């Protein structure tokens, strides 16, 4: 796709959990728990509050289509503040310090006086009905020339357990929200900026790592399209796919818009009741439905069923809108006959609706209220098709396509958090922040100072084991040995199901020191790590792999093996080295260094030849 010609504009919002000792506005630890460990449940309702203009925010209104009772799980690691039963504490200075450090790394201007706000969120994920958030810095730059608009420090929401039940362990963990300007123009650029910001975040060594600790929201639009926010992209490598599929969707929707207008397509104001038409149908869903509504979309034939994104049709979009009313989905004549609905059913339906061959009829089934609500939603989405691309918040689907979630929230849903006093940020405070070395700089330094290759240097700099690596090198271990052990060896072990994460740094470094000094064979390292992960101490682990082999022991073993295979060796000459080496290694693996074995064997073979 020619993204420049299409006028692609994209921006990202990155949400990163901070690894602080306490939460942002209470003194609870930032620890996630198993729901089995919960201590109690709290049951609450939330009500939308009305603004001075007499309106309820459109995104909030969509969440409140029905009154819901929310359930919250509490733990011995949560308190009355998460329960919304105690006012918040002052903002956690540790979190603010991390935020300011990142702001400084991104060359941003820090706000003179930080004001905490309440952002209305009434989907139940925040017990007070709002999320506390504060703008702390503005106008920075990421990488080459992408402008960072703002950094906000906010509270993480509670985790949904199921339905309207939430777990309070996650709520209140400090979250840094970094918003870029819409300055990216290709999918690859979006991935690069996201990766750069992620690298800056990790450079502090004070952000949480692991699943769900960093989330990207991507804002995408093309010329004549609309701003679409796709929430919750967790995997960086999926970003280009998400962007390209969204561009594809918007291009398809614009083509549909043009085609509808050239066909002179039109929509009625409401659907009609066709419940009686399906009394004798073979479709199980329709047969048991209390009410079936249909609507004739004039001039829409072939368009509702047209793919606009891999696996998604215009019909899928209509279906997402209809589902807000509680129905399971929709049927449309572009995909019928199917699902037990026969040719005769379709013919009767088309006739009842007065539909011609250019038209598409949409069906919805449910209770009377659900069906009539759903048919209006289908019509509403149908009308948007004439305009092109509706502004929406969407959620990412596993392969990179996306589904409708709700309208874009209005800007008008933020008011001051009066329980938290403003915080003045002085120049001295910002000047006093000591910047950590960026991971990218650190990788370059490793390459320069330790002579390890570029890829390995980058991988070690970005890995969880960076600190262990630096300690090991400081202890005099060869950087290449340390890097290989901490990256390749441990990764291979984890593929075998061995969890090395609990192995103590000191044990690890001591082991590598022994290898460095020749006391332990390099080859023994995986088995020793395996034993360490199993809970043995270092000496026990080394012992378990087998007693060390002296060079004298090795020489007699090699001589014996060479002697037994003398015919073979004479026949092959030095080419026999490889096969025989394999036999020797089987006996001594892990107990003596491979290089030593090879030297001894070479000498022994040369003696025969």
């Amino acid at each position: 796709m020619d993204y420049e010609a299409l006028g692609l504009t994209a921006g990202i919002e990155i949400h990163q959990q901070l690894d602080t000792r306490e939460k942002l506005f209470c003194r609870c630890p930032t620890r996630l728990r198993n729901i089995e460990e919960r201590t109690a449940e709290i049951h609450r309702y939330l009500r939308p509050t009305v603004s001075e203009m007499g309106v309820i925010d459109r995104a909030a209104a969509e969440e409140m289509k029905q009154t819901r009772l929310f359930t919250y799980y509490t733990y011995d690691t949560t308190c009355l503040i998460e329960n919304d039963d105690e006012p918040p504490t002052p903002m956690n200075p540790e979190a603010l310090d991390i935020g300011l450090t990142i702001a400084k790394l991104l060359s941003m201007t820090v706000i003179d006086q930080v004001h905490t706000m309440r952002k209305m969120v009434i989907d139940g994920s925040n017990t007070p009905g709002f999320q506390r958030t504060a703008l702390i810095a503005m106008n920075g730059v990421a990488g080459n020339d992408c402008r960072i608009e703002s950094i906000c420090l906010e509270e993480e929401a509670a985790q949904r357990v199921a339905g309207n039940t939430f777990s309070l362990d996650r709520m209140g963990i400090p979250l840094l929200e970094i918003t870029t300007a819409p300055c990216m123009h290709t999918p690859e650029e979006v991935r690069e900026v996201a990766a750069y910001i992620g690298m800056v975040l990790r450079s502090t060594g004070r952000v949480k790592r692991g699943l769900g600790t960093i989330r990207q929201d991507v804002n995408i639009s093309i010329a004549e399209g609309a701003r679409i926010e796709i929430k919750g992209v967790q995997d960086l490598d999926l970003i280009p796919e998400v962007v390209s599929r969204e561009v594809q969707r918007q291009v398809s929707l614009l083509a549909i818009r043009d085609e509808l207008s050239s066909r002179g397509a039109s929509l009625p104001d409401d659907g009609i009741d066709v419940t009686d038409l399906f009394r004798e149908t073979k479709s199980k869903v329709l047969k048991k439905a209390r009410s079936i509504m249909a609507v004739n979309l004039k001039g829409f034939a072939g368009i509702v069923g047209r793919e606009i994104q891999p696996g998604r049709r215009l019909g899928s979009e209509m279906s997402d809108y209809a589902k807000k009313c509680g129905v399971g989905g929709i049927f449309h004549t572009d995909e019928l006959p199917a699902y037990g609905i026969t040719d005769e059913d379709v013919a009767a339906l088309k006739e009842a609706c007065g539909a011609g061959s250019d038209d598409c009829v949409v069906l919805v089934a449910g209770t009377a209220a659900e069906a009539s609500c759903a048919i209006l939603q289908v019509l509403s989405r149908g009308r948007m098709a004439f305009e092109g691309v509706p502004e929406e918040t969407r959620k990412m689907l596993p392969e990179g396509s996306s589904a409708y979630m709700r309208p874009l929230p209005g800007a008008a849903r933020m008011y001051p958090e009066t329980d938290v006093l403003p915080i003045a940020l002085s120049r001295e405070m910002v000047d006093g922040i000591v910047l950590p070395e960026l991971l990218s700089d650190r990788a370059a330094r490793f390459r320069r100072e330790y002579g390890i290759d570029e890829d390995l240097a980058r991988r070690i700099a970005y890995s969880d084991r960076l600190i262990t690596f630096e300690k090991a090198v400081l202890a005099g271990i060869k950087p290449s040995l340390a890097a290989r052990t901490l990256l390749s060896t441990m990764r291979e072990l984890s593929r075998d199901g061995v969890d090395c994460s609990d192995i103590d740094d000191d044990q690890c470094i001591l082991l590598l020191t022994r290898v460095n000094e020749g006391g332990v064979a390099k080859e023994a390292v995986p088995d020793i790590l395996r034993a360490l992960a199993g809970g043995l101490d270092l000496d026990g682990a080394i012992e378990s792999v087998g007693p060390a082999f002296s060079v004298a022991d090795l020489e007699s073993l090699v001589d014996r093996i060479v002697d037994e295979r003398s015919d073979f060796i004479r026949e092959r000459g030095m080419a026999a080295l490889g096969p025989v080496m394999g036999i020797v290694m089987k006996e001594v693996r892990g107990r003596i260094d491979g290089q030593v074995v090879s030297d001894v064997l070479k000498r022994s073979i040369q003696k025969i030849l």
Partner: protein
Amino acid sequence: MKTGDQVSCTISGIAVDGIYITERDGMAVVKLKSGYNIGIHPHQVAFQGDGEELAVAEPPVVQDTRLPVFSIISTGGTIASRVDYRTGAVTSRSTADDIVRAIPELGAIGQYRTRQPFSILSENMRPAMWIDLARAVYEEIEAGVRGIVVTHGTDTMAYSASALSFMLDTPVPVIFVGSQRSADRPSSDNAMNTLCSVAAADADLGEVLVCMHATSDDDYCAVHRATRVRKMHTSRRDAFKSIGTEPVATVTYPDLQVKRRDVAVRRDATDLALHDTLEERCALIPYYPGMDPAILDAHSSCRGLVIAGTGLGHIGSSMLDGIRQLKADGTTIVMTSQCLHGRVCSRVYNTGRDLLQAGVIEGDDMLPETALVKLMWVLGQTDEPQEISRLMQENLKGEIQRRSLYGL
């Protein structure tokens, strides 16, 4: 610059549009387009234009004239408020229409008259205001309403409710209500508390009561007798507890079913009467180890003094002379206990017997705050020492219970 003006802020050389809100600690507070407020040095803020006046859409509220009439009297505790997202300001609302607009379910229960005798934070409440409040409630009952709801800040709600208990003989329920979480937040307890209060005001009850969340859940409210209720937590929704007794009733939510207990005073059991005189020169002091007896001298102008003593109702013997002196100067002294739960008994130990001899009145199982309010009221009714003593020791509005029940 004034609130609502359109301004432009220069941040690292880039202009950002916003709305001027106010000045705070030498900083200009500006609401940016994104909705965030920031504090910024005033010299970085440039005036761009006058703020737009936004017409406030107020959909009309139609009250159903077939429903019973209730009176909502606001004292400053807000049960309805509205957020201005433009400036972020929260304004409280107290007209009947505002309240029904904020809590639409109220419209299905009744029609509403509203009054606002004053609007204060409940920590600024004074006994003179109890009199104004009692008169307002009296007039509303006289006007024939089905029940009264008084919205009140939670800090001193129990004092005010208790005061009205003594000043007012009421044939209809007078329900005090407030919220622990402010009404502008989606999670506020205001709506449920108010709905339950109106249900209680509609019920077969005839006394002054406090209606608040019974648990941390949005499941039911407890209706407490005004003279036996106390705020026992600084922030929880279920801060209000009946002490030494069970709540008079419960109201479930959201179905608003009122369950009355036998101890409740029924509707129309009492004729309407107002006794609106109080002696304000009264004090409540706790005794503590090392207390300087001179503190008593500072109370020499008091006509009544309630002491929250230790245990069964004690104070250190070093205080005895001061007590005798106060008594001789004509001050009525009532002993209660800082234990809150239980009954004072000054006959068990010597200290207690000395206090009795000095003329201190045993406060029985009255809560210290209730004893203070009652003493103000009793001293407002009579100057006769014997009569004062009799009234203080007699149960007038459920403040004294003859028996201490196990399990409460």
